[in-house]
């Protein structure tokens, strides 16, 4: 550190440059050495440099008392678990675009067969508002098109092409240098090989290049086509169409709104140059659903995301059209927080050795709220021995924790199976994600919750009942791959037998009823007919329904009742919060997420300025009532005045008000010039923060630009 201090002065000058390389040791070192060393280090450190990039070590928790072994274990656990999840997510993202890729590719391959001459084949890809994941889509597109359709793809973003010249330059540059290998020299060569040298925005150059490297298509992809200036687009398209006889152009448009709207922005004559087809991309909502299933709800996910956290995440996704990458980052951040700051995460390791655990671990386990509940429950049940064991015997406790960890995994699988069954029901009360979060929060208990589900089961028509039973049976047999559920016929043998019997009985009853010439129904099923207009009519209908029940109907009613009872018994689970030691595998804190991903900088700055004491914690600035203390930072004082002014501020009055507070009249007041210096600085800060701007309405007046709390 001493070296830093001695050289820091030399840096002082550098510090005000626009950009510089930070290296406090450089001055001390010989200039030639780093260059030499690099060669060596490059070979030696190949594996090590991964680690450099990897991560700085996790901190030791328990106030630094955690053993290094444990903190490393946590880090390893984090790396491993997240990389597992990440792989899954990436696979989903890649797969999500597959069908679009396939369609676009086949369109471009087939286009020469059916396209009218003189029109540019163009694919309109409706990406929706999720522009953040467009990059991945277009990257995949360009890879696939290059590999399968023998095309070079140039990706244009509105930022790259501000005018026609820049766009053409980029198109030519990218086509010529496409696919690695070619560097600047190649470009020069290919452009000026025969005869005249072309300008770098002359399509002739591209033509010349294509003569030597023929391609079936030159695909120009406008990623965010709405953001392009419409005149520029029209120009480009008409230019392309005039070159179409020499250069096989094809266009891709990423359209966020609709093709009609997009078309309306182009000239009619331009539109006529296009021969297009429209392709839809899987919408982000369904992708989020898939990610949720595989990465959050999946039983192999080491970390459960609590209902509160997940709900905040999903709500943000819906309300603010947050992007999918952001959703993934948020997931990742939850993992990071959990493993970084919770010392108990070591219990998530499968191969945790007991001797690695420290006294602190045991202590903090005993401090967990869920542990206390557990002990209290034992005491209430009169099982004081177990409670004592848990409290006194460390070994027993660790064993118990391990057992419970195993149980929690079983619990997750069970929960997912139940949800699967519930989702099968004909009238699912909400989507899977909603059901899942509800179940995490409240558990599942059909007797007093999920009335919708109960009703939908009761009202099932025989056909529905049959399909329900078969689908449940299938689900039990096959599991669900996306949720990572295996078949579980052995475990649920009784249920399988029960459902099969329900199935056959229903079929039998239906057949009997048919033979007798009437339709089988239960006493509940009448209720889902159209509501009768009046209460009386409804009652009449009801009694009518009850009266009309045949023997088969009665049998079917009994059958439905039995099914209901069985389901009630089967579909029952605790909420996540009720599980012992859930703090180890459940992450449900909203706070760091909110602050880290949804910052509220306005509020923070406003708070800092209106109550500096919150941050500074000094004794002098504690405001009494609304009094403005002279010791406040100058900007804070000005900000107080600022809050009270109208939209126009007289600087002269502002200055005299300021000086009245800090000036010589007070004890320890400042002299006028020093006060003015601080006043200047505060005013400049207000201006830089965008609170005020110059106003020409009156001399020495400034305009107010921001209102607190808006």
């Amino acid at each position, binding site marked *: 550190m001493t070296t830093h201090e001695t050289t820091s002065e030399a840096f002082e000058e550098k510090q005000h440059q626009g950009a510089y*390389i*930070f290296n406090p040791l450089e001055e001390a070192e010989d200039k030639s050495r780093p260059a030499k060393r690099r060669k060596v280090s490059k070979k030696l450190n190949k594996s090590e440099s991964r680690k450099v990039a990897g991560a700085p070590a996790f901190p030791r928790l328990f106030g630094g008392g955690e053993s290094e072994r444990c903190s490393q274990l946590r880090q390893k656990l984090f790396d491993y678990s997240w990389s597992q999840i990440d792989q899954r997510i990436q696979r989903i993202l890649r797969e999500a675009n597959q069908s679009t890729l396939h369609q676009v590719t086949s369109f471009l391959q087939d286009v020469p067969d059916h396209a009218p001459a003189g029109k540019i084949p163009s694919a309109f890809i409706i990406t929706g508002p999720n522009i953040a994941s467009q990059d991945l889509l277009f990257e995949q597109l360009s890879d696939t098109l290059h590999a399968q359709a023998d095309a070079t793809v140039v990706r244009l973003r509105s930022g790259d092409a*501000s005018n026609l010249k820049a766009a053409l330059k980029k198109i030519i540059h990218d086509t010529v240098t496409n696919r690695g290998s070619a560097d*600047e020299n190649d470009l020069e060569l290919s452009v000026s090989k025969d005869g005249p040298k072309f300008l770098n925005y002359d399509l002739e150059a591209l033509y010349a290049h294509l003569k030597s490297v023929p391609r079936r298509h030159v695909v120009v992809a406008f990623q965010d086509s709405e953001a392009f200036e419409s005149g520029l687009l029209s120009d480009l398209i008409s230019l392309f169409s005039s070159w179409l006889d020499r250069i096989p152009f094809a266009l891709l448009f990423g359209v966020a709104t609709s093709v009609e709207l997009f078309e309306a922005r182009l000239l009619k004559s331009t539109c006529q140059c296009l021969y297009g087809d429209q392709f839809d991309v899987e919408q982000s909502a369904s992708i989020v659903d898939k990610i949720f299933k595989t990465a959050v709800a999946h039983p192999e996910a080491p970390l459960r995301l609590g209902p509160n956290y997940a709900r905040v995440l999903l709500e943000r996704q819906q309300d603010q059209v947050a992007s999918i990458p952001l959703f993934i980052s948020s997931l990742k951040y939850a993992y990071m927080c959990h493993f970084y700051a919770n010392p108990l995460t070591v219990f998530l390791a499968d191969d945790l050795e007991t001797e690695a655990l420290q006294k602190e671990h045991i202590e903090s386990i005993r401090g967990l709220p869920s542990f206390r509940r557990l002990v209290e429950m034992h005491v209430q049940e009169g099982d004081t021995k177990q409670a004592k064991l848990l409290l006194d015997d460390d070994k027993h406790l660790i064993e118990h924790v391990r057992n419970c960890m195993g149980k929690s995994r079983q619990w997750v699988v069970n929960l997912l199976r139940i949800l699967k069954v519930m989702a099968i029901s004909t009238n699912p009360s909400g989507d899977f994600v909603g059901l899942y979060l509800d179940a995490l929060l409240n558990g599942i208990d059909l007797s007093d919750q999920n009335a919708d589900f109960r009703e939908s089961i009761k009202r099932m028509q025989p056909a529905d009942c049959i399909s329900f039973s078969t689908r449940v049976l299938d689900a039990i047999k096959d599991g669900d791959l996306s949720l990572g559920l295996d078949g579980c016929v052995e475990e649920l043998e009784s249920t399988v037998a029960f459902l099969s019997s329900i199935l056959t009985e229903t079929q039998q009853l239906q057949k009997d009823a048919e033979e007798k010439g009437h339709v089988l129904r239960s006493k509940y099923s009448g209720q889902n007919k159209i509501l009768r207009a009046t209460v009386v009519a409804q009652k009449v209908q009801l009694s009518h329904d009850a009266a009309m029940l045949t023997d088969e109907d009665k049998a079917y009613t009994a059958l439905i009742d039995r099914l209901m009872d069985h389901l009630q018994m089967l579909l029952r689970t605790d909420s996540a919060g009720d599980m012992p030691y859930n703090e180890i595998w459940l992450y449900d804190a909203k706070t760091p997420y909110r602050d880290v991903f949804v910052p509220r*900088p306005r509020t923070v700055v406003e708070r*800092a300025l209106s109550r500096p004491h919150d941050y500074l914690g000094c004794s002098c600035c504690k405001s009494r009532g609304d009094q403005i203390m002279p010791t406040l*930072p100058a900007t804070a004082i000005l900000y107080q005045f600022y809050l009270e002014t109208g939209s126009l501020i007289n600087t*002269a009055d502002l200055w005299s008000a300021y000086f009245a507070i800090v000036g010589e009249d007070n004890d320890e007041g400042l002299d006028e*010039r020093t006060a003015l210096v601080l006043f200047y600085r505060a005013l400049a800060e207000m201006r830089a*923060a965008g609170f005020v701007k110059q106003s020409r309405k009156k001399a020495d007046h400034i305009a107010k630009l921001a209102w607190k709390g808006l």
Partner: protein
Amino acid sequence: MKGLPRKRGKKLEDTTSNDQPEVSTPRHRKPRAIGYTTPSRTNGVTAKGETPRWKRNDRSAKKKSALALIERVVGGESSDEEADEEIAQEIYESSEEEEEADEEGRLGVDESVGATTDEAATPSKRPRGRPPTKKGGRTRKKSPTPPRDLPPHELYFAQNRPGAAKTSNNTLTSLKLLTHDEYFTLLREYQDPHKEDIEFLQSLHIESFPQWAFELSQGFSVCLYGYGSKRALLHKFANHVFSNSPDHDVHKIVIVNGYVRTNSVREILGTVAGAVDPSHKLPTGGATVMLDSVKNLLSSREIHITIILNSIDAAPLRKPGMQPTLAQLAAHPQVHLVCSTDTPDFPLMWDSGLRSSFNFAFHDCTTFASYDAELEVVDDVHELLGRKSRRVGGKEGVTYVLRSLPENAKNLFRLLVGEVLAAMDDEGEGGETPGVEYRMLYNKAVEEFICSSEMAFRTLLKEFHDHQMITSRKDVMGTELLSAPFCKEELEAILEDLMS
């Protein structure tokens, strides 16, 4: 978007043809228009003449007065018709006042009776105004300060009331403004009473350095926000990263000061490239070309770069194209970005695409440290006061102004800059900026057919003068000298710009 994924739409060709323009929209609109009929009640009311004539007149008067007020507020200049305005103000305020009176229950008996009968007659239609005749001499002074503890939106409207912005006519003329020298001398002597508290606050932030480093290593970019300069803190963070990195050859740190006015894409990318390989030369061309080159360079080496960026929301980095470039740079897996922001509205700079390539983790980092390096306090304040506004901001300003001027104005400026540069070369460095004689410039301008008369010449010069693009002074002999208030490099850049 419709919920029909992967469905192939109809061929675009169909819609491109002009046969059926805007098929859907009118079809939807028409039945609606038929469905909604104008409520007959309004017609009936006026037809029956239930609304007294004076009331309608009064309403229109109020409308007019409101319009006048709005015009004045929008126009922003005090017009000559001061008297008219006062009347308008009175009419407008009379209704407001009445409302307040209503609320406070101080209304006279007969008036309140009148009001209630009005209400009974046409409850929903009653205009808020009241005939000026009824008002009599009762005027209640309105308090200039709005009631306390208003919710934010109410406060906004209270403070933006038309006509509410009455400020005194005091000016700062009696105050001697600060010069740079005085400012810095006094500032050096000043002891901040909060020095210790600020240091304590900083030490709190320093404790989260390992956390930031962890976030960086996980592919997040760290963005610090909150009041106060974060430059010193970030410098400490750079030291932290530096001392914790085991090998300085594969892990470099680049510090960028966003607030430096001359900062450009080339400078930033050049420094990054230089950190990877000092011998690397950036290709000439646009930002994308340079960026590609830097990215390729990075991918070919196993060097990690931590970019520490002070004030990512400073004006030089708000130029178009800057943020996307930074975002793409930050998205590179070998680049870790830590940046600070100073304004409270910085998230508006990024759309969701940029946000996701930056992949920010935000941290409240209120430091209360003063912005010593970031702001040019004296210049900023003087510009704010409109006192000695710095001439249009350098080269960009000039280009901006010239873009809106006619061709011969551009030519004249080119001529002037050329002459000033020539004069600079003759006289060498040092001394005042050399000037060009007014006469000489005029003659040259006539020669080059820029203007034909002195009148036209002066008009052109006046335009420059308004934008403070030229200065004029008299030398000892009394001849008028014209010059441009820019340094030599800037002049050369301007000239280059004008010639191209």
